[in-house]
C-alpha cells in the first residue's frame, strides 16, 4: 500500500487538531505509546497551553533514545541549474541568477575545506535538472566525497528506484526529500511547472529510496505554504508509515520554515516559534526514535533553545550557495537557495553544544 492510500484515509483527521479539548491533551500526555489520533491532539490549539509538559516528556524521551548527543552535518550545493518553477525557491528557473555547477576539482576543494572542520556527514544538494546535473555527475561527485566523509546523503530531484540504487552503490547512504506540502491543491499552485509538478511521484520517493538500500530517509514539509497543523499531522503520518514499512531504515524529519530568498515569496501562513516548538515536540512524543533535524534557516538563539527539546541533528557552517564554502559568493547576481540565519561555523556550534551539556557527534556512520 502506498502512502497515498494511508494519506487519503486520514485526510480529514486534522479537524481533530482543531477541536481537541484540554482534557483530551491531559489524557494524551498520560498515554505511553501514542497513536495517530494522539498526534492530532498534540498539534491542537488546546495543546498549545501544555508546551512545558510536552517539553519535559520530549526532553526525557530524546535523552533515552539518543542520549546527550547532537549529530552535526553540513550541506554542499554542487549545482543550481533547475527546470522547476517552485514559487518559493531561490533556484526557480524563473529567477535570473547565475547558474553554476561545480567541476570535480571544485567538489574536491569544497570537500577538503569542509573535512578540515572534522565533519564526517555531508548532504549533497542540486537543483532539479537531469541535463545539467545527471545521476552520472552526482555519482562522480560522490566518488570524490567518499575520500573525505563517512556518510553521504543527497537532497536532489526525485528518482526512480533503480536510480536510487545506483547512488547507493556509489556510496550514498542517506536520502533527504521534502514533500514541501501534503495538500494536493496547494502543491499544484506552488509547483506550476517542471518535473516536480508530479505530486504522487514525489510522495513515493522516500519509499523508493528506502527500498533501494538507503540507510536513512529524511522527509519534511516546508512550513509556511499551508496550515501548519495539517502539514505537521501529514508529516507525522508519513514518517510513521515509513517506520512501519521499512523498520531497518532510520527515518528523520525536518521542519524548514520559509525564509526570504531571491524570488521574494510571501508565506501563505506564518509559523511562529511557539508553533514550531509544538510541532517538534508533538512529533517527538508520537515517534520517539524519529531523527529530527534543524537547519541554519533558524536563528542561533532559537536553535540553541531547541537543543534539549527533541532535536537530534543540526547543520553547521552552512552555505546555500553553489561552491559557497571555498569561493567568493554573494556578489553580483550570485544567489543562495535561501538565506541562512545561523552563520556559526562548526567549531562555534561544537562549543555551544558542549556548553549546553551535549556531545557534538561528527561521525556516526562508516561506509562498509
Amino acid at each position, binding site marked *: 500500500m502506498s502512502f497515498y492510500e494511508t494519506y487519503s484515509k486520514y485526510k480529514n483527521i486534522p479537524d481533530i487538531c482543531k477541536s481537541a479539548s484540554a482534557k483530551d491533551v491531559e489524557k494524551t500526555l498520560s498515554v505511553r505509546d501514542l497513536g495517530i489520533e494522539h498526534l492530532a491532539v498534540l498539534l491542537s490549539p488546546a495543546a498549545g497551553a501544555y508546551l512545558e509538559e510536552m517539553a519535559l516528556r520530549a526532553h526525557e524521551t530524546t*535523552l*533515552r*533514545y*539518543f*542520549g*546527550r*548527543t547532537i549529530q552535526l552535518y553540513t550541506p554542499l550545493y554542487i549545482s543550481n541549474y533547475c527546470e522547476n518553477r517552485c514559487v518559493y525557491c531561490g533556484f526557480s528557473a524563473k529567477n535570473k541568477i547565475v547558474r553554476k555547477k561545480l567541476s570535480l576539482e571544485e567538489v574536491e576543494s569544497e570537500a577538503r575545506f569542509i573535512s578540515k572542520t*572534522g565533519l*564526517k556527514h555531508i548532504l549533497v544538494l542540486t537543483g532539479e535538472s537531469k541535463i545539467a546535473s545527471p545521476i552520472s555527475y552526482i555519482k562522480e561527485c560522490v566518488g570524490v566525497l567518499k575520500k573525505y566523509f*563517512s556518510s553521504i546523503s543527497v537532497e536532489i530531484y526525485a528518482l526512480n528506484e533503480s536510480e536510487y540504487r545506483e547512488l547507493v552503490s556509489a556510496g550514498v547512504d542517506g536520502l533527504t526529500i521534502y514533500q514541501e506540502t501534503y495538500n494536493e491543491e496547494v502543491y499544484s499552485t506552488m509547483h506550476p511547472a517542471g518535473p516536480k509538478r508530479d505530486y504522487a511521484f514525489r510522495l513515493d520517493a522516500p519509499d523508493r529510496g528506502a527500498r533501494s538500500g538507503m*540507510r536513512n530517509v529524511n522527509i519534511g514539509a516546508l512550513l509556511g505554504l499551508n496550515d501548519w497543523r495539517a502539514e505537521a499531522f501529514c508529516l507525522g503520518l508519513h514518517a510513521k508509515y515509513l*517506520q512501519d514499512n521499512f*523498520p*531497518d*531504515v*532510520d*527515518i528523520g524529519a525536518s521542519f524548514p520554515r520559509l525564509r526570504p530568498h531571491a524570488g521574494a515569496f510571501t508565506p501563505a501562513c506564518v509559523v511562529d516559534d511557539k508553533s514550531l516548538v509544538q510541532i517538534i515536540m508533538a512529533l517527538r512524543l508520537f515517534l520517539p*526514535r524519529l531523527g529530527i533535524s534543524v537547519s541554519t534557516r533558524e536563528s542561533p538563539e532559537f536553535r540553541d533553545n531547541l537543543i534539549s527539546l527533541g532535536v537530534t541533528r543540526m547543520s553547521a557552517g552552512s552555505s546555500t550557495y553553489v561552491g559557497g564554502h571555498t569561493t567568493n559568493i554573494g556578489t553580483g547576481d550570485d544567489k543562495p537557495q535561501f538565506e541562512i540565519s545561523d552563520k556559526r561555523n562548526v567549531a562555534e556550534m561544537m562549543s555551544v553544544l*558542549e556548553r549546553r*551539556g*551535549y*556531545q557534538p*557527534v*561528527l*561521525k*556516526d*556512520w*562508516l561506509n*562498509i
Partner: protein
Amino acid sequence: MEDILTIGGREIKNRLFIGTGKFSSYETMKRSLEESDVDIVTVALRRVDIESKTENVLNYIPKKCILVPNTSGARDADEAVRIARLAKAAGCGNWVKVEIIRDNKYLLPDNLETVKATEVLAKEGFIVLPYMCPDLSMARRLVDVGASAVMPLGAPIGSNRGIKTKELVEILISEIKIPVIVDAGLGAPSSACECMEMGCAAVLVNTAIAVAEDPAAMAKAFADAVSAGRLAHLAGMPHSTVGAKPSSPLTGFLRDV
C-alpha cells in the same frame, strides 16, 4: 577466594561493563569509566574517528580496559562481519560485540543473523559477545558456533525498564555453560543488582549512566550494585518462598512413623 570472571582467556574483575554512547562529552565518559573502575568497555565502531586527535573516543578509554567494538549499524551477518574486520584492522583488538538490528523502532536484535556472524567471526579468532533476544535454542546455537558469552537484553535498548525478560534469562543462566551477560534496558542500579543476584556473569549498562545528572556517580552506583548482587549470589540467595512457613512442618508426622 577471589571471584574472577574469565572470558576469552582474560580475567575480568569488574562485572559491570559500560557502553560509551550517549554521554554529554568524552571527558564525562572517561570520568564515569574511571569512577566505576570498569574492565570492559564497548564502543560503536561507526562512532570511531581514528584520524581525529581530539574527537577519537578511543583516546578517552583507560588503558587497562578491554575494548569491545560493537557492530552497531549492521543489518545482517555480512555487514557485522565486515565491521568486525574493520575494527580489528583499525587496531581495536579481536573482541567484538555482535549487534545486528533490522528493527530501528525497538532496536531488537536479529538472532538468526547473529548466529551466522558469530560463527564466521569465532572461526576467525574473534572473542565474540553476541547481543541477543533471550531464547534458549538460539543461545545453544551461539555456544555451538563459538560465542564466548551470550548477551541477552533485559528490556529494549534505552528503555530503562529493568529486567523484563527475567524468566527467559533465568533459563539461559540455568542451561547455558558460557557467561550470560544482561545487556540493555537496565535503568537503575537495583535492576543490575537483581541480574547479578539471579546469577548473571555480568551486566552491560550505557543509557542509565550516560544520561544521569551525574554520570560518574551513577557509574559508581552501578558498579557497587553489581558487586553487591554478585556477593549475594555467591552467598546463596534464598529461594523466594510462597506463603508463610508454618512453625510445625506439615509433613512433621512422617518422622514419627
